[in-house]
């Protein structure tokens, strides 16, 4: 892959969106196009990963060939490539589920274009090397998600959509304010350029409150304590597959951006890490523990899973917080970030998989209230097996993927002597197991109960759903049994994030002119 081919990550979903808009009357064509574009997406992601991961090199494409701090840079480093790989697989699995399980009503109303545009926003946020561009990418992603929230709306879904839309809007507006203020103080919005300023210790004190406000912005999007209240109240109203897509992508984009911003860009600025790190670590502990308590107390599959997202976000935050904690050795920092990246990847796959399982449970039993369903082990044995693998993986039983993610984070925590959060993480893990066993024993194991729910007599068609779930479970298993290889990739990614010298050089080039000394002669208008 040459640097300029990075743009394919944006062109492919954009073309997907446009083509499916044009074909919005031909349902069949839309589905074929969708699968085609998503496969192309996976191929591109694989090519990108192969190009950067083995050596940890960084591909940079300057849009319109404008030199770095002025134009928009798209940057593909190992971290972005890993995220793109995982997200494209998750998208394909969800798409398979949607195409085969949703009826025409649910797939109508421009569902397909929205799906592709959501992917566009997600991939763009993984690639961009510019703060304001990140805001634009976020907005594309969020606009698509707002509209998807209202596809086939029930009144209930709409009522809850307000919380999601308004909260995210306020977050976006704060984000754009922060971006503007940062530009006013630093004179640049290019991430590499800001990193350079932070590394050289020239960050003015006045930008500390602005960056602290960024914790609020990304924290709201990632759903950390105390900003998580919108999430458990909205995600459960969505159909299983769309819930899976949101759970697999949206909060993870927030976590990714947090790694980029707080570890890579501002990780070297003492004045910022000394404030942000305790904030994140404290929030991580409360987030993971309260989230899992909420999950244990719920009685519907989708509710358990959606409140569980929050608990898992806590682990990612723990990694980020440890990585910028004061007085921690370089190796432990790399380990903490690598753990967080591994955990994000694992969580994208597994969480989405569980949501899809929840959707199929609903199809089989006619409800997803655990007090009303049961006996699914007999009705859908394969679903039960796949659910069990995904659930145990989420709970973190060895040798499945969740175990290794948590293991690395715990070791990083012990090395840096943050014992409290390590203990909380272990306890949370036990409760996670409990909540998963709750779904298992009520939904699959126990005999059917409650006569107030009509069990469908016809066996539902579940081919597409099972295909999507199987794809994700295979991914999860490969992450568990091939954890060493995945972890090496994560370590490469983490190294370039913790020590961003290479990133800065790749984006800004060797000889970099600070903006203020630039004279008119040097900005010749012919690129």
């Amino acid at each position: 892959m040459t640097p300029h081919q990075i743009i394919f990550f944006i062109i492919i979903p954009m073309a997907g969106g446009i083509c499916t808009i044009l074909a919005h009357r031909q349902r069949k064509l839309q589905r074929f196009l969708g699968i085609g574009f998503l496969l192309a997406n996976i191929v591109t992601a694989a090519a990108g990963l192969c190009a950067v991961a083995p050596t940890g090199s960084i591909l940079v494409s300057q849009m319109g060939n404008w030199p770095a701090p002025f134009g928009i840079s798209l940057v593909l480093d190992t971290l972005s490539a890993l995220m793109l790989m995982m997200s494209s697989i998750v998208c394909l699995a969800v798409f398979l589920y949607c195409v085969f399980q949703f009826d025409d009503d649910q797939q109508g109303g421009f569902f397909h274009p929205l799906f592709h545009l959501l992917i566009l926003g997600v991939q763009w946020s993984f690639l961009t090397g510019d703060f304001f561009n990140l805001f634009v990418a976020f907005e594309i992603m969020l606009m698509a998600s707002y509209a998807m929230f209202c596809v086939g709306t029930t009144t209930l879904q709409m009522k809850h959509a307000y919380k999601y839309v308004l909260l995210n809007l306020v977050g976006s507006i704060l984000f754009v304010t922060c971006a503007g203020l940062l530009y006013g103080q630093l004179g640049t919005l290019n991430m590499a350029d800001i990193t350079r300023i932070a590394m050289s210790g020239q960050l003015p004190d006045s930008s500390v409150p602005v960056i602290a406000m960024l914790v609020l912005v990304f924290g709201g999007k990632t759903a950390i304590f105390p900003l998580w209240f919108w999430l458990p109240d909205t995600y459960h109203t969505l159909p299983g597959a769309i819930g899976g897509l949101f759970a697999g992508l949206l909060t993870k984009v927030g976590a990714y951006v947090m790694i980029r911003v707080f570890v890579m860009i501002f990780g070297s600025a003492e004045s910022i890490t000394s404030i942000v790190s305790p904030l994140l670590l404290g929030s991580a502990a409360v987030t993971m523990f309260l989230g899992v308590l909420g999950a244990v107390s719920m009685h519907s599959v989708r509710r358990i899973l959606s409140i569980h997202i929050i608990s898992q976000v806590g682990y990612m935050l723990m990694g980020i917080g440890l990585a910028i904690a004061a007085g921690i050795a370089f190796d432990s920092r790399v380990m903490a970030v690598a753990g967080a990246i591994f955990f994000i990847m694992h969580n994208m796959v597994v969480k989405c998989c569980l949501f899809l399982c929840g959707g199929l449970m609903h199809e089989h039993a006619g409800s997803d209230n655990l007090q009303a369903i049961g006996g699914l082990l007999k009705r859908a044995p394969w679903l039960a097996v796949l659910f069990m693998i995904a659930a145990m993986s989420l709970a973190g039983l060895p040798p499945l993927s969740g175990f290794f993610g948590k293991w690395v984070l715990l070791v990083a925590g012990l090395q840096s002597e943050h014992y409290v959060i390590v203990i909380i993480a272990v306890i949370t893990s036990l409760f996670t197991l409990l909540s998963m066993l709750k779904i298992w024993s009520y939904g699959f194991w126990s005999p059917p109960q409650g006569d107030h729910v009509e069990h469908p007599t016809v066996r539902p068609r579940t081919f597409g759903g099972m295909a999507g779930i199987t794809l994700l479970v295979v991914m999860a298993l490969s992450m568990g049994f091939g954890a060493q290889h995945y972890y090496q990739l994560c370590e490469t990614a983490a190294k370039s994030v913790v020590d961003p010298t290479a990133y800065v050089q790749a984006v800004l080039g060797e000889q970099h002119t600070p903006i203020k000394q630039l004279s008119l002669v040097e900005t010749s208008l012919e690129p």
Partner: protein
Amino acid sequence: MNLLISIMVGVLFGASVFLMLGRELKGVCMGVFLLGHGANLAILGASGSPIGKLAPVLEHGVDLARYTDPLPQALILTAIVIGFAVQAFLLTLLVITWRRTQTLDLNKLALETEH
């Protein structure tokens, strides 16, 4: 100039927070719109005072420091366009909610039965 913009940003943010704390959905949405305008103004303020500066149309032989910075204006323009789309979406949602439930009062909406 900067002082004036700062005060205006403060007023806009304050008013929008006040609106958003209300129990009427229309008010809440208006609050979000106002917040967007406040943010745009804040970016404009961050770009420094434009008094005594030239419009950013480059000519040879003129010191760059004499031009206003065009970038914040470009940022604001983008933010306005995005904000416009979001406002349209939010207003549509309001209309649909009204048609479905005949109320925009959050207390009454919260009582809507879950079905």
